């Protein structure tokens, strides 16, 4: 049921993104006349925070084995940090003249059993100059809103009753209460500035 729910939510989120694009498209279409144009410049799944969570999904540890016969059961992080829909992003460039354009984008965010990455939007601009006829100096600035990564804790039983812990560190030699200090609570890069200089030979 949880699996079906996650897939449903992921597809719902994607559908909303595409519906928004469908609404925006006519409003922006004027830009395609004359000097102006609207281009889809990037589409991808994943991202820094999504990659971070994906990396975490490869871990795991043995439980104490108190409640079972035979070898202790293995608790995989994959159950908690995998998702069927990784953060999906699309970015467009609205070119306003030969040397200036506005960039904007959307991402769906993603969700697993023990984490959530909020959807986000990206806004920015790109401008360029030609210090020499065969050279281009380009400044790209982008800002990001929302897209926060939140990690949820687990409830663990060490034989003294349940207590709240960081799922990943529950079997580490760290005090259970202290593990909560290491829960992921991350913002994406809020500001990206890139300056490039290229020369055509």
């Amino acid at each position, binding site marked *: 049921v949880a699996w079906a729910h996650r897939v449903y939510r992921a597809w719902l989120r994607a559908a909303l993104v595409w519906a928004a694009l469908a609404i925006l498209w006519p409003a922006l279409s004027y830009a395609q006349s004359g000097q102006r144009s609207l281009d889809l410049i990037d589409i991808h799944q994943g991202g820094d925070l999504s990659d971070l969570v994906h990396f975490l999904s490869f871990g795991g*540890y*043995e*439980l*104490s*084995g*108190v*409640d079972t016969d*035979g*070898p*202790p059961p293995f*608790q995989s992080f994959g159950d908690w940090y995998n998702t069927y829909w990784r953060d999906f992003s699309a970015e467009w460039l609205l070119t306003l003249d030969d040397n200036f354009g506005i960039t904007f984008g959307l991402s769906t965010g993603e969700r697993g059993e023990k984490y959530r990455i909020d959807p986000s939007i990206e806004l920015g601009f790109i401008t360029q100059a030609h210090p020499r006829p065969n050279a281009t100096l380009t400044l790209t600035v982008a800002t990001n809103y929302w897209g926060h990564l939140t990690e949820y804790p*687990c*409830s*663990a*039983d*060490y*034989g*003294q009753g349940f207590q709240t*812990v960081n*799922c990943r560190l*529950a*079997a*580490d*030699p*760290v*005090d*259970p209460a202290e593990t909560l200090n290491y829960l992921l609570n991350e913002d994406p890069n809020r500001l990206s500035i890139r300056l490039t200089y290229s020369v055509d030979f």
Partner: protein
Amino acid sequence: MLRTNHALAGLILLPLAAFAVPALAAPKTTPAITANALQSWMSSDLQAAWTAGYKGQGTTITFVDEFSGSDPFSGNWGTGAKTQLHGYWTTQETALVASLATIATHDFNLGTTVALAPTGLNVLNLSYAMFARAGYSANQIGWSNQETSIISYARSGLAVISKAAGNDSVAMGTRTRSGLQDYLGDALIGAQSAIFVGALNTNGTTAKKATLASYSDTAGTNKTVQSHFLVVGVQASTTGLAGTSFAAPIISGYAAIIGSKFATWTPTQVTNRLLTTARKDTLLNYNATIYGMGEASLTNALAPNSIH
């Protein structure tokens, strides 16, 4: 009545020490081994604890042992061959397991009250026995302040007591073949924070199961003893040091590391954690009368029973 204040003692203080293993020849050069290198005699469980930075900090392990005398013997924990007294061997073993635990020593010839640290988890390592001719009843034993304090700590749960089971190949709580009885061991049976520690020939794995060392005492048929009896590997073939004397310090070190993680737990809670998370599937033909609760597992003790 027997007195055990050592001037009048009918009881014999006996470190449960190395025997039957030839002393290792000293290497020509002593290899430089850091305090936290995983030695071949150690369980691989320790590496994960050390990697996470937990080495027993915040805890105190007090060794009641032989620190004065004239009967040193040779061995090598992997940090260089030495010849020294029993108490120095046991303390160094635990220091290698839990290097950040505070190590305190109390010469067992003193007979005085054993002091506990005012804060943090207290662990007492008892790699010795108090032998006397079998047949006395408990109320015939007049303990010194030393053993009185130890027994009190164990019964009231003020310290984890790691007690070497004995090297007589008999069940805990029974007389040896020479007719002696370990009355200190007997006094600790049923104490809430006492653990009796037997020796395996090696650290066990599910692929290569361990067996009890031929010299080690067993848990026996007493259910109370069984429920407080653990075993750990004592790999004398690599260290030259055999005996349950060197099993108890490993449990002392484990208790300290567990105390580092569960800093608010009582000694009894730490004791129970070690006992209830011991593994049985790493032991050949596991039987509670031999192995008690099983082979101590630091990994299991640190891991949750369940999580969601």
